[in-house]
């Protein structure tokens, strides 16, 4: 749909307005909105709809769902607060924003939890019906003045009786009271749509799609949404509304996508390119399960997605499927990767292609299931017994999960190796507008099938004969006549694959497995730098922090400083020019959401790169650009 096709349905009303009472429309470049309420309040839906309709409208978007691990914590309690932050903008939306310009707080707990996430001068729309004494008590307020108690004197509170207005809106709907109350989130969304001049037609369509089989729900939601919009309009809820112009994006077809979906599609794309069956062995785990959900749905693409009995069966079934010729993957999060370690080592030993997706969350142990960190890097790199090198790559944004999953699959299949793909809860659940890729533009994937690529006499073939350039062994898939063989977890004879305990053979195999992974760097693009190439300071990041680090770099440059950024996707092996690149800068700041795992990895690799500074934060929350700017400025000032 083209944005210009979307005439606001309330233009007619606007024209009738008397100029003196007309709300002023202010153009702004970017805005961050946070919807917040009980985990049963439907805030994720309000947020998703707002971000999707903004993307369809033509804005750049970046979202951050921030929800508790509990499905339904006690109503009104601080633990039960579920939030959805979305940043929209005309352009340069690289992350979901540090703090909110607008907060929708459905109850006092939501206000309290989000007080720290508010900008000065922000608008807080709150439901007056749920700010009664008992509600304030549930959120442990001591006084009847929640804003004052929280020190929120610099915000603009706008109280709207959302609950009673929703009831009034739907009193003739014939629905039961509890069902009517479910539409409170739509009334709130209507208010926000009014505030930002969002065309409601798109929201209507999205609701039609979402509840296609429940027309009564569609009707009620559209009614509540529209009434919310009109309420804002008719009561001149604020003195100004805001317009965020559509972004001038590259031509093409777009959709909005979260990282987990993009990961699932990246695997499908790779299987399509490689002309192999896609297999997923998985076990439900937050925040990775949506990958399993999507691939389970995609039977229309012939995907075989198995929900196995545990994490270990998830990976071992995938190892079996890989042995049998599939593009095999397993999806998990940190605790699951820990359980998969031994089987991952088996894939290293048997040199079978495998994609292991770790959607990182807070740890250790069960940790913070719904929060995001980068604390599994060491686990991915080293978390196995023996000398067990694997390829590690990290996706840097929701949409980049597609390319990263595609590339992980390509490397796994072409180099006969397990690849760990690190994403994280932030980019996995966050979404952004995505230009639908043309797969014709993607590289071919050519698995080293023995019958196709082994040039010698079939009778002379041995399971551990290798391609001399890549050191990859050939793939002899069961069912192929003439190539029966046995593989296994015991050390292999360097050629025949028979069990071998010979000292020199083991040494040689350890070296070969390492060298095979190292040589993959020959097939990777060089590490790129953005910003000022002649800067003294280089910001280094990896994975899901890209949006925050990029914006930090831009802000630093806008303030007149010279600075550059390099963000790593390829972690093992590192791009070939990594060492050279790091040496070019006087100060290298490695910023990551852990206690310095990538920094330690780099300084371990490159002993002469001693000028590393570290910025580390492990709160389970995304970086804040303002904090990064402050911290980096300080480092840059240091002599």
């Amino acid at each position, binding site marked *: 749909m083209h944005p210009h096709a979307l005439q606001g349905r309330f233009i007619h009303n606007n024209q009738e307005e008397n100029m003196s009472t007309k709300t002023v429309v202010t153009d702004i470049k970017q805005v961050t909105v946070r919807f917040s309420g009980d985990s049963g309040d439907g805030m994720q839906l309000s947020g998703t709809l707002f971000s999707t309709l903004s993307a*369809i409208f033509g804005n750049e978007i970046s979202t951050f769902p921030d929800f508790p691990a509990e499905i339904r914590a006690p109503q009104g309690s601080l633990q039960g607060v579920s939030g959805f932050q979305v940043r929209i903008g005309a352009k340069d939306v690289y992350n979901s924003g540090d703090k909110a310009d607008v907060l929708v707080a459905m109850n006092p707990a939501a206000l309290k939890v989000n007080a720290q996430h508010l900008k000065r001068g922000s608008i807080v729309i709150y439901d007056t019906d749920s700010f009664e004494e008992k509600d304030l008590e549930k959120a442990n307020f001591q006084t009847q003045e929640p804003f004052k108690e929280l020190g929120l004197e610099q915000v603009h509170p706008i109280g709207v009786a959302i609950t009673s207005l929703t009831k009034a809106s739907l009193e003739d709907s014939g629905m039961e009271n509890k069902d009517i109350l479910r539409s409170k989130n739509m009334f709130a969304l209507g208010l926000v749509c009014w505030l930002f001049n969002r065309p409601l037609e798109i929201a209507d369509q999205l609701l039609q*799609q979402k509840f296609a089989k429940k027309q009564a729900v569609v009707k009620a939601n559209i009614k509540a949404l529209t009434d919310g919009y009109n309420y804002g309009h008719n009561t001149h809820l604020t003195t100004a509304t805001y317009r965020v112009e559509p972004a001038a994006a590259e031509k093409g*077809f777009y959709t909005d996508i979260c990282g987990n979906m993009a990961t699932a599609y990246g695997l499908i794309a790779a299987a399509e390119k490689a002309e192999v069956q896609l297999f997923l062995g998985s076990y439900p785990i937050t925040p990775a399960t949506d990958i399993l959900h999507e691939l389970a749905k995609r039977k229309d693409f012939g995907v075989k997605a198995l929900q*196995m009995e545990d994490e270990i*069966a998830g990976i*071992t079934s995938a190892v079996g*499927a890989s042995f049998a010729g599939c593009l095999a993957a397993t999806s998990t999060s940190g605790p699951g990767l820990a359980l998969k370690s031994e*089987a991952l080592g088996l894939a290293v030993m048997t040199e079978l292609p495998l994609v292991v997706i770790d959607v990182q969350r807070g740890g250790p142990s069960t940790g913070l299931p719904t929060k995001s960190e980068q604390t599994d890097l060491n686990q991915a790199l080293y978390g196995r017994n023996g000398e067990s090198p694997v390829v590690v790559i990290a996706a840097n944004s929701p949409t980049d999960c597609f390319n990263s999953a595609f590339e992980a699959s390509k490397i796994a299949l072409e180099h006969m190796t397990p690849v760990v793909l690190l994403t994280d809860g932030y980019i996995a659940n966050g979404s952004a507008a995505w230009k639908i890729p043309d797969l014709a533009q993607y590289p071919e994937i050519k698995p080293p099938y023995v019958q196709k690529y082994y040039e010698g006499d079939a009778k002379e073939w041995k399971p551990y004969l290798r391609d001399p350039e890549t050191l990859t062994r050939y793939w002899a898939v*069961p069912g192929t006549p003439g190539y*029966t063989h046995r593989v296994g977890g015991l050390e292999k004879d360097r050629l025949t694959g028979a069990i071998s305990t010979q000292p020199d053979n083991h040494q040689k195999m350890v070296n070969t497995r390492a060298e095979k992974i190292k040589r993959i760097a020959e097939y990777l693009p060089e590490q790129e730098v953005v910003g000022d190439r002649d800067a003294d300071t280089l910001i280094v990041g990896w994975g899901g922090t890209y949006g925050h680090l990029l914006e930090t770099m831009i802000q630093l440059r806008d303030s007149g400083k010279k600075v550059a950024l390099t963000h790593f996707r390829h972690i093992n092996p590192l791009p070939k020019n990594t060492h050279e690149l790091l040496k070019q800068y006087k100060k290298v700041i490695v910023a990551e959401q852990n206690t310095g795992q990538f920094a330690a990895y780099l300084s371990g690799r490159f002993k002469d790169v001693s000028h590393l500074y570290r910025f580390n934060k492990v709160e389970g929350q995304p970086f804040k650009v303002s904090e990064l700017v402050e911290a980096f400025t300080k480092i840059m000032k240091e002599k």
Partner: protein
Amino acid sequence: MNATTIQEHLPKDYKSAIPVRWCPGCGDYAILSSLHRAMAELNIEPHETAVISGIGCSSRLPYYMSTYGFHSIHGRAAAIATGVKVANPNLSVWVTTGDGDSLAIGGNHFIHAIRRNIDINIVLFNNKIYGLTKGQYSPTSDKGFISKSSPYGTVEEPFRPAELTFGARGTFFARSLDVDVKNLTDMLVEAAQHKGTAVVEVLQNCVIFNDGIHSKISDREWRADNTLLLQHGEKMIFGKEENRGIVLDGWSLKAVTIGEDGYTLDDVLVHDASTRDNTLHMKLALMELADGLPVALGVIRRVEAPTYEREVERQITEVKERSPQDSLTQFLLNSPNVWEVK
């Protein structure tokens, strides 16, 4: 394939050139040999056969096959085999495993493979001991069993593989002896012919760490009186004189002598392996010498049920017919929430 080109396979066609390295006198030799024979009898192509194992003495077996083989990690063979079979349902997939491998560390995969009824053949070598780690008690060791890790005798009850299999709603369970190559070969053939998860428990002797553990059942002098070879549709008759039979006594099974105490041949039960209700199968499988009952051998249960991998294929076919997809790009373009920037 043209009838004239069908190659009749011999047991040696399934045998690899690698020297077998089990202890002399180990029951595993006989199981290996039976497997070679069974495959020849089934005449399956070695390249269309995959033998998957975990860790332990039993799990070395794939190296001695000329088929595709995978000697994996401890306990996981059933899950790996599940992946292999789902990936390529045309393969004949076998799991060779031990009592420790499949009932301790791999217990979860064992029961879930059975529950799914994936069409794999699990050959469970039950010697009631950990052999490769030099003699610890296993999940099938009898209570009180003395071993290196239970010097004063175990204080825990054992698993009985049949009980687990039926508890997981297994569709096929057979029991055989390492010393009875003919019957064992038959059981392996029957297991392969069964569509679904087939468990063949082989009572196997560990000559080093648990020698003679099954001798009351397997030794020639005891075997006829102490075992009952079940055959579908046949009376449950056993004993050297073939004059003993199994009858129902209230809710229990009882071994009687035909012609004594008023029991006639008509009282002897007829084995029905294919009845869905597994109550009697369970009772038969759990018969013990201690209760004055013979140990049941043969196919105890074999019922038809849909197999997991075929159900996966069926769903894919159905969904593809309902909503065919050309390419991922086209699918994405047709998905909700697509907009064009011109």
